[in-house]
């Protein structure tokens, strides 16, 4: 059967990664992967995906961030239950960290296939830029901040930052976890304690964000990969971005450790979150497609597909039983942290899309204006207070 798959992976590295999946499906099954890429971000794609599912004309499979996004669709009985397949194949045994599968579970049943792990607490640094400024490549965030004046003197932008709410929210997230540490962070993000969010501890986060805002003052790109490109070409010192940025370095032929450095947890707290992407399979009528959906689910989580896909995408595989010795420097760092248990829940799992959007809006406003750190913190605290 023709299997229409919608997703929003259209940048260079992403597209290569998707084609690995497509190849696997086309080669290993009798089915045909019909690519339904929608460029833009999830924001563009999600209404399309949801409308299609709601309208009774669903695709065979679709990318969605796992976590709370799909809950209502599952509740409405629009998503295929994969529990039987998962139990037969023993997903519980090899999916690592197990929180990934939890994200796919609703009332004890499994509804999605996690395909990769993405973490967002990375600082990417350009060796070229620091060479130009004549200083050492920093080891953590604070060194980076200290090095900024030198970079500026060299006519460089200290920090590249795409001016979109979600990127700014990522930077904020990375800064908060690195600056205040995991416990305080959990109180706010997981337990939604507005007092902590408005407290003195968290004020440091906002101060750091304000610093970052200064560093990124002259970065006027919008798209994340254009910001990454500034780092790649040595026009900017560094960028806070998710691990997918590595795909861009790879496409540009750069080598981790030689041309660029990656600092998970901004080099401060060695923790990363375990967000990522997952595939859902909407309920369809056609029995052929139904069967094919299960076959496809099984392939997506298979070892070969996981390796091929994640190598291309620069993300971590969801299986703990894969040999990733071929992975590069950064990916190895990530694996090491995972192995050491430095795992955080992803924001998609802890905060609703609504709350996240509000935070994004706040960050967008904060980064683009002269809003004081105190004001921003107060607003943040009130968002946390009303979060559900």
């Amino acid at each position, binding site marked *: 059967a023709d299997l*229409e798959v*919608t*997703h929003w*992976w*259209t*940048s*260079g590295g992403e*597209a290569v990664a*998707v*084609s690995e999946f*497509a190849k696997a499906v086309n080669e290993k099954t009798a089915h045909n*992967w*019909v*690519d*339904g*890429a*929608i*460029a*833009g971000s999830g924001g*563009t794609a999600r*209404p*399309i995906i949801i*409308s*299609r599912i*709601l*309208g*009774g*004309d669903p*695709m065979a499979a679709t990318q969605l961030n796992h976590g709370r996004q799909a809950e209502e669709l599952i509740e409405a009985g629009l998503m295929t239950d994969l529990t039987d397949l998962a139990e037969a194949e023993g997903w519980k045994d090899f999916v690592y960290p197990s929180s990934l599968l939890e994200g796919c579970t609703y009332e004890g049943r499994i509804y999605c296939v996690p395909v990769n792990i993405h973490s967002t607490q990375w600082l990417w640094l350009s060796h070229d830029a620091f060479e130009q400024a004549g200083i050492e490549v920093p080891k953590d965030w604070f060194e980076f901040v200290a090095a900024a004046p030198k970079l500026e003197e060299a006519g460089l932008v200290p920090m590249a930052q795409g001016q979109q709410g979600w990127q700014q929210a990522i930077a904020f997230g990375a800064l908060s976890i690195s600056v205040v540490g995991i416990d305080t962070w959990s109180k706010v993000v997981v337990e939604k304690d507005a007092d902590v969010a408005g407290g003195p501890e968290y004020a440091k986060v906002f101060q750091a964000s304000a610093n970052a805002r200064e560093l990124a003052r002259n970065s006027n790109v919008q*798209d994340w*990969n*254009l910001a990454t*490109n500034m780092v790649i070409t040595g026009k900017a010192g560094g960028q806070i971005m998710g691990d997918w940025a590595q795909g*861009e370095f790879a*496409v*540009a032929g750069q080598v981790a450790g030689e041309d660029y450095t990656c600092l998970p947890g901004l080099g401060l707290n060695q923790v990363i979150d375990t967000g990522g992407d997952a595939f859902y399979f909407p309920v369809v009528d056609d029995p052929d497609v139904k069967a094919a959906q299960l076959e496809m689910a099984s392939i997506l989580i298979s070892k070969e597909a996981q390796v091929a896909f994640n190598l291309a995408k620069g993300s971590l595989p969801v299986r703990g039983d894969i040999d990733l010795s071929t992975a590069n420097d950064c990916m190895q760092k990530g694996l090491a942290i995972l192995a050491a248990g430095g795992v955080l829940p992803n924001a998609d799992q802890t905060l609703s899309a609504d709350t996240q959007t509000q935070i994004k809006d706040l960050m967008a406003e904060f980064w683009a204006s002269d809003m004081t750190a105190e004001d921003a913190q107060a607003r943040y605290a009130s968002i946390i207070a009303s979060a559900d």
Partner: protein
Amino acid sequence: MVDATSPTAGRILEGPRGSKPKSRLSRRNIFLYGTLLLVSIYYLLPLYVMIVTSLKGMPEIRLGNIFAPPVEITFEPWVKAWAEACTGINCDGLSRGFGNSVKILIPSLILSISIASVNGYALANWRFKGSEVFFTILIIGAFIPYQTMLYPIVIILREIGLMGSLWGLVLVHTVFGMPILTLLFRNYFTSLPEELFKAARVDGAGFWGVYFRVMLPMSIPIFVVAMILQVTGIWNDFLFGVIYTKPETYPMTVQLNNIVNSVQGIKEYNVNMAATLLTGLVPLVIYFVSGKLFVRGIAAGAVKG
């Protein structure tokens, strides 16, 4: 007679004679054409930039001056935009979308214009109790942002089983084209002499007879306007095209969005511009060809009321 033929001698050669001398460079002309040319620059600039950029290679673009003409003209970006640009794993550019757009455009055009013209005709010549109320609702409907109607439309389409089919999309275009088109047709038919309608009634033509045999053949100008507006609207539509179709039937604009927003490494501005121009080609050509008819039709349909 005597007076008329005996000009007062001597006076005939005095003073100015014939047409008033007009300098081509009069203050009025300088002001007039100067303003027009200046404004023209504003209007032509983007088109110029798009064309010029689409003919440059990426290295040349990186040099920075977007207004400079291409040093070396290359059609590579056009070829790429049409046939090679990638979205996800499909690398066949806009070409696929073109056919789809045409397939969407033609039935949408026919259905939406037919229905709107019949509406306009009924509203102009066959008023019935409440017809104006429905019309007022339609006009207010023209102000509703389409996006808020997405969900209700999804539900309606699901209920009538057209979700995901081409006809669902055609229906959506018909519905959202209806307010402004109905207004145009109604105004136009109202401006036709009412006596013509009466004569046809006396001649025994009924609702459809009058419409097809009398009104329709007289409505070319307004049909042209309606067609131009709809071609523009439907061809340029992205939102409905992406939501109410599937990947195989994605229209050109969706393809364009994919190409433009699929940033791979660096933005290939030249390809983007070429893709943009290619996508806009159909409505552009229509405007360039039928500008005069458009003005005439607007005069007939939009201005009288």
